[in-house]
């Protein structure tokens, strides 16, 4: 198993921490992982993206030309990352704020209306966990208990009381992910 994934959106959407939770969950499942941020001025309000690789074997390049999955949370990221998904790969996106929808026919495309859901359910701080849930539904590469362990490891202890809420958000994401045809 080897999953090469890019998560991209605005800074503040929890893109990097979502990647971190995923990577930590991978470690909990005895996988090799890398988490490679695009950092710099972009971190401060601009677009942010992170490359996460989860693999059974030693990981070579942390830098990717092509990815298996792109999780896209704003328009700039859609424009940048839709073209680099491998044939047969996965594109998951939140339609909120997307004016130019994906056009490729050779990949699987799913949407998760996480922004809407999070606002409606007054769970806006767990927006990224809904997206994570949607992803894990589509690519069940990690067991639930390892994801919860990864979540626990990623959060500072003072935020551990929020774990049940995050767990709920993951479930919400799993329920609401939709195929785009």
């Amino acid at each position: 198993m080897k999953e090469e994934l890019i998560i991209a959106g605005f800074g503040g959407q929890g893109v990097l921490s979502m990647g971190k939770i995923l990577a930590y969950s991978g470690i909990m499942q005895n996988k090799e992982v890398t988490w490679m941020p695009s950092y710099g001025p972009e971190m401060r309000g601009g677009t942010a993206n992170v490359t996460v690789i989860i693999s059974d074997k030693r990981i070579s390049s942390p830098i990717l030309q092509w990815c298996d999955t792109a999780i896209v949370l704003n328009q700039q990221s859609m424009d940048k990352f839709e073209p680099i998904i491998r044939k047969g790969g996965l594109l998951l996106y939140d339609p909120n704020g997307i004016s130019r929808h994906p056009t490729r026919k050779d990949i699987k495309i799913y949407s998760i209306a996480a922004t809407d859901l999070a606002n409606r359910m007054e769970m806006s701080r767990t927006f990224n966990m809904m997206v994570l849930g949607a992803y894990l539904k589509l690519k069940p590469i990690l067991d639930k208990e390892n994801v919860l362990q990864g979540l626990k490891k990623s959060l500072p202890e003072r935020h551990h009381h929020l774990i049940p809420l995050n767990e709920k958000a993951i479930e919400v994401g799993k329920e609401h992910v939709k195929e785009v045809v």
Partner: protein
Amino acid sequence: MAEKLLKKGNEAIALAAIRYGADGYFGYPITPQSEVMETLMEEMPWETTGMVVLQAESETSSINMLYGGACCGKKVMTSSSSPGISLMCEGISYMAGAELPCLLVNVIRGGPGLGTIQPAQGDYFQAVKGGGHGDYRIIVLAPASVQEMYDFVGLGFELAFKYRIPTMILSDGAIGQMMEKVELRDSVRRLTDQEIAEKYGHWATVGKPANRKGNIISSLSLAASEMEAINLRLQEKYRTIEKNEIRYEKTMCEDAEYLLVAFGSSSRICEGTVEIAREKGIRLGLLRPITLFPYPTPVIQEMLPQLKGIMSVELNSGQMVEDVRLAVNGAVPVEFYGRMGGSIFSPEEVLKAFAEKFNL
């Protein structure tokens, strides 16, 4: 089983410093390595191991705090990024001259000048050929993973004290900012003052006991004959290091007809290149120098009979390639591919460049 954590390369350096029994860290903030001192400050090792952590007023001051601490026989270290290392070069030269052990970490960013905060490998010459004045070398280790960032803190201190020489971990913004699995090793206890006095009291400034003369640590010797003798001794030490301490890693080299040579983050990308090349039936291998000084010259030379060509791949304008060419000495064609200023190549991009250079 040892604890496995997901950590940035910079964080791994800090955790390793505490666990490998460092006595002191002295540093100054600069992107992309500030997490080193931030992590140390958060961990508060002075409460546990007694390690001193101090934010200095400049890199100039940090390196001279290292000089003072190293004179004391203590395990001292600093970390910085390119412009900060430039400022430290005076002190590094002094420490090389005075034969002092210390650990330096350079998380390289793109230059020259203030440059960029994105990763690069443009400080190879500075690290390997000596950034400061005078004829000196330091041991240079190039980690290619977060685990190696951790492990090389231990190795770096070990080599620094074995040879009484500054040792540098030459990393870059990619390895520093990237998170990977880190397996924490067993902790090494800090030496007590008593143990340091017994082990290093013959040269270190630990306070002069009645039965010996005062130790003087200096890089000054005005008489040309004395200074030449010191230089000859230093050169002899460097030759010993070249003999004993070469470290490298080979990937798919047994049947390789072509060879990529790359260190640090570039070598990780080139591993990817080798994977793709092999799928296409190209017999490509990768040599990753782990020590940049001493350079694995003999390892390249041994491989020459099987090779049709070598390409050095670096995030700079072609620095290490000079050492590859010196090793090869014209025996096979040596090409170079690089990106600069914080731009990074992908495995596919490297393969394309390789195929073009060798008409494959």
